[in-house]
């Protein structure tokens, strides 16, 4: 079924299968179910409560709990603009993002935090009703909020359901952060749009035992999480399908998951397209079929161009120039490079932008990240690259002092989520390789590092 809104989706299944479980959440003696009829009623109540606040823009510090899910699903009906923020964001970053997004009210499971951040609230917005803002990558100072809607997110979930249908008897385990569009669409909406049950993961502290607790049949994961589950054999016997997305995934990892009896599909998408636009459904995992609502072509240089009328973002929030730089005539210039095989399936071949995709699915925009490091270290003679899945720093210095470097970049690192912090630091006395216009020759830098390691 194709839906335009969250509550419309839930109300449909509340009519068709009122007693079927919609959400599974932790209970006193194991998982407890909230039926579609129960969820429908709860959404009506929550929308009324939110409307009564008489506010315009709600920042949700998403912790994946039932209360959080109810709030996010009810907010558009209450006429609010919703801002999805990760609950683990440091306070200083959260405060800055509240101002940028014009939030005038907060939802957080942590009342103390809500109080602390209240001084950073603004006067709200005028035309935000129904907009849902997700941040690209890791919500750094330079991150952009992508304006999506319930309709674009529901369409994306419909796309996913067409490619990988779930049965009403299925249980989809939602382990990924809901503040990430892949987690929201493929961890939550995909299941609800198919009328399946969605088990609400209990957070990072339960990554190791959520599969055993909820006994899901389907799961969405980023490569890092898949690796964690595969290497420790944490899958339950009922699990049959894993959708992997939001980053490059080593083929060995997929093979290991398959050896454990799982069907693995790989998806490609962006926050700007409300999540996936192509998914592998058979054979080669990295050969992806285009989702029904989307159209993908390649530019002359191989850049992937996406037209997705039902799923496309409205733009970057208050960043018109940034929007125009990537979205022109309804076509998104992704910055990713790809090719088509003889069956018309899409293969991702690389990145056009100066960007790293980290194993947790977030993206690191190198020019901004490196500018921050350069300011902290007082030199621009540095480069950041991916080293065993983690950002590493190459710094030109004639007197290497790692401890001093770490101390200088520490404030910058403290403001970053863990996976985005600098791991290994390499030093070189040589000048860094650059083009005639001063841009770093990143492939040469990677070659330099490989030579250093040998």
């Amino acid at each position, binding site marked *: 079924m194709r839906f335009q809104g969250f509550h419309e989706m839930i109300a449909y299944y509340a009519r068709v299968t009122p007693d079927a479980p919609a959400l599974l959440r932790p209970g006193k003696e194991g998982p407890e179910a909230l039926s579609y009829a129960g969820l429908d009623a709860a959404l009506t109540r929550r929308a009324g409560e939110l409307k009564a606040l008489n506010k315009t823009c709600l920042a949700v510090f998403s912790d994946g709990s039932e209360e959080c899910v109810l709030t996010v699903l009810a907010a558009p009906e209450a006429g609010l603009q919703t801002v999805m923020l990760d*609950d*683990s*964001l*440091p*306070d200083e970053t959260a405060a800055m993002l509240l101002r940028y997004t014009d939030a005038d009210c907060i939802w957080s499971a942590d009342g103390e935090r809500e109080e602390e951040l209240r001084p950073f609230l603004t006067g709200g917005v005028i035309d935000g009703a129904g907009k849902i803002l997700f941040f690209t990558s890791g919500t750094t100072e330079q991150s952009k909020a992508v304006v999506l809607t319930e309709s674009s997110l529901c369409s994306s979930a419909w796309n996913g359901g067409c490619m990988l249908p779930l049965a009403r008897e299925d249980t989809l385990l939602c382990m990924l952060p809901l503040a990430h569009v892949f987690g929201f669409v493929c961890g939550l909406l995909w299941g609800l749009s198919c009328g399946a049950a969605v088990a609400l993961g209990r*957070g*990072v*502290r339960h*990554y*190791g035992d959520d599969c055993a607790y909820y006994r899901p049949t389907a799961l969405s994961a980023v490569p*890092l*999480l898949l*690796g*964690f589950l595969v290497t420790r054999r944490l899958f339950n016997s009922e699990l049959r399908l894993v959708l992997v997305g939001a980053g490059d995934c080593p083929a060995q990892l997929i093979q290991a998951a398959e050896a454990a009896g799982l069907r693995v599909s790989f998806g490609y998408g962006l926050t700007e397209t409300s999540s996936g636009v192509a998914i592998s459904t058979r054979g080669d995992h990295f050969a992806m079929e285009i989702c029904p609502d989307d159209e993908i072509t390649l530019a002359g240089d191989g850049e992937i161009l996406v037209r997705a009328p039902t799923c496309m973002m409205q733009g970057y929030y208050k960043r018109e120039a940034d929007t125009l730089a990537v979205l022109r005539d309804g076509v998104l210039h992704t910055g990713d490079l790809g090719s088509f095989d003889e069956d018309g399936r899409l293969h991702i071949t690389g990145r056009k932008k100066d960007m790293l995709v980290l*194993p*947790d699915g977030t993206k690191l925009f190198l020019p901004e990240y490196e500018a921050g490091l350069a300011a902290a270290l007082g030199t621009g003679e540095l480069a950041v690259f991916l*080293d*065993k*899945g*983690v950002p590493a720093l190459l710094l030109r210095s004639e007197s290497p002092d790692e*401890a001093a470097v*770490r101390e200088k970049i*520490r404030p910058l*690192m*403290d*403001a*970053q*989520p*863990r*996976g985005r*912090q*600098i*791991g*290994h630091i390499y030093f070189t006395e040589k000048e860094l390789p650059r083009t005639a216009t001063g841009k770093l020759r990143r492939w040469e830098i990677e070659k330099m590092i490989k030579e250093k390691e040998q």
Partner: protein
Amino acid sequence: MTREKILEKTKAVIYECVPELEGVEIDENSVVNTDMGMDSMNFILVICKLEALFDVKIPERQWNKLSTLGEVVDAFEKRLKKK
């Protein structure tokens, strides 16, 4: 619990969760990142085991600020004192 005891238990958990560190000496200044074989999932595992061991919780939004082994120990010492 003394700081030395917390340090000792923390090191034991790290060695248990990151077997690659066997035979490698770590001290309070060791940076707990990929350099010592600890990716972000391993880090979560270590913190969760320590939380269970000491029966205290470190809020997730403070995790990013724990760079060295000494800082991990500081965080648990502070929480244990509040208990």
